[in-house]
């Protein structure tokens, strides 16, 4: 479980353009569930993800992950507990390395990197098994450099790499937004299967209301750094979400 307590974050603190994006923000993310966070641009959802992962440091507040405050840890120290898939498919992989080499790197996460050989043939069956789950035939391309893969294949590989060591928390940062609708659907389906199979505590940011309802257990809508909706996905319809979304948009325009 992730507990966010009393989170505050401001941008441009010493100028007239000061933005207080979060002020005394609290949120609990349930264990082994997928929580979708939605909201218009500027609502704070990406900032929240960056604050959790440590790419941005909070001004104040705690991030209690499995009973430990990770809020003071550097981004790379937090990364040991957190898996993240970015929007840009090239962010989660090393393009000049092969699939096998990328998987081998991901497999060492959190264990420290020494002067021992990285790639071990004995681990190939394990990687093949993981890649087979994706159903994209990547298991037959272990020696292909990742730069030759399509965006969808790369994003699926990123997902496997990010979840390989069963992180305490998986962050999905609009990870299908850069893909075409068909590929996006496939990756989303695979994501759900993986999350359910390995029971991963997941936060998923999405712009797509339908995806948010279909692929999560709980939907949270943010507006100006505050939770304005928090419901189980099964109790929500796309129309209902769109309605609130439109109302908020109009409010902002007024």
């Amino acid at each position, binding site marked *: 479980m992730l507990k966010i307590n009393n989170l505050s974050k401001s941008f441009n603190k010493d100028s007239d353009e000061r933005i207080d994006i979060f002020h005394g923000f609290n949120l609990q993310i349930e264990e082994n569930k997928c929580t979708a966070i939605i909201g218009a641009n500027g609502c704070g959802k990406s900032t929240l993800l960056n604050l959790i992962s440590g790419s941005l440091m909070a001004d104040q507040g705690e991030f209690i992950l499995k009973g430990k405050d990770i809020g003071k840890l*550097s*981004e*790379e*120290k937090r*990364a*040991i507990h957190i*898996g*993240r898939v*970015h*929007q*840009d*498919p*090239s*962010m*989660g*992989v*090393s*393009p*000049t*390395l092969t699939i096998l*080499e990328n998987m*081998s*790197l*991901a497999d*060492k*996460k*959190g264990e420290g*990197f*020494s*002067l*021992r*050989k*990285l*790639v071990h043939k004995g681990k190939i069956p394990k990687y093949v098994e993981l890649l087979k789950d994706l159903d994209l035939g990547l298991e037959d391309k272990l020696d292909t450099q990742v*730069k030759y893969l399509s*965006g969808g294949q*790369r994003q699926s590989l990123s997902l496997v790499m*990010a979840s390989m060591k069963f992180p305490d928390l998986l962050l999905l940062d609009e990870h299908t*937004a*850069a893909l075409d609708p068909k590929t996006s659907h496939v990756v989303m389906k695979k994501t759900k299967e993986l999350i359910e199979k390995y029971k991963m505590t997941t936060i998923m940011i999405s712009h797509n209301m339908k995806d948010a309802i279909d692929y999560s257990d709980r939907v949270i809508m943010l507006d100006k750094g505050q939770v304005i909706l928090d419901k189980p996905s099964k109790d929500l319809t796309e129309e209902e979400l769109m309605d609130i979304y439109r109302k908020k948009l109009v409010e902002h325009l007024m």
Partner: protein
Amino acid sequence: MKLLLTSVEQGLIFAVLAMGVFLTYKILDIADLSVEGTFPFGAFLFARFVSSGINPILSTFLAFCLGSLAGLLTTTLFTRLKIKPILAGILTMTILYSVNLKINGKSNIPLFSYGSIYDLGSTLLILIIIVLIVKILLDLFLKTETGYLLIATGDNEVLVKSLGENSNKYKLIGLMLANGLVALSGALMAQHQGFVDITMGAGIIVVALASIIIGDTIKKNSNILKNTTRAIIGAIIYKIIGGIAIDLGLNPNDLRAINAIIVIVFIAYNNTASNLFKLKGKGGAKNA
């Protein structure tokens, strides 16, 4: 024949330089200009040690070890003090210019009266052995966990962070190793030509880049040729072409401009060719 032999020998010395620069330029994607200072730095260090009575082999090895400190300085400048890598390299190079003059208190030192690593046997054979040792160790290193993270750091720093590692550590390792190799190359060159001179580093980055780029064009799409092998072959071809050009009456001073033009033409060709490819293809990842 003598000319060809000298060219091959000097090519092998430049191969060590090219393998060092390959680490920064190709793997880490950093244009480390400090090597212009590190190359003579290695030579001056060698001169200092050998003239104080230290054995030439140990002196050469010490030049490698201390030369790596140039990489420590450059990396500190750009990771801790947030100075742009290209400027950090120029600053290190400038500092080294003064340091090099201080090491022996002179800008030119003849080495003929001292021993050299080539006294051990055939110069060519000794150089081949040194180049092979460097190549094999470098290839082995790049297959280790740390080596792969060095490659990943040049490729995608976000991934390195997500693996729980600080990418600056790998930049430091890469730059120290690279500068150590460049200093080693400088020490080998000093012993080969029999003197150390403050100007011996001028334009050396272009020589290194030209070697790497020439090496890259050999069997371009073959994965079998390792990058270190390419750097070695590139440096030898470069030196042989340069040797022939000078033998045909080309002024050695004009060679520098030709080096630079080789680099410009090859990089321009590679860049335009990849652009053409992008226009034809459907394009890769669309970055948001």
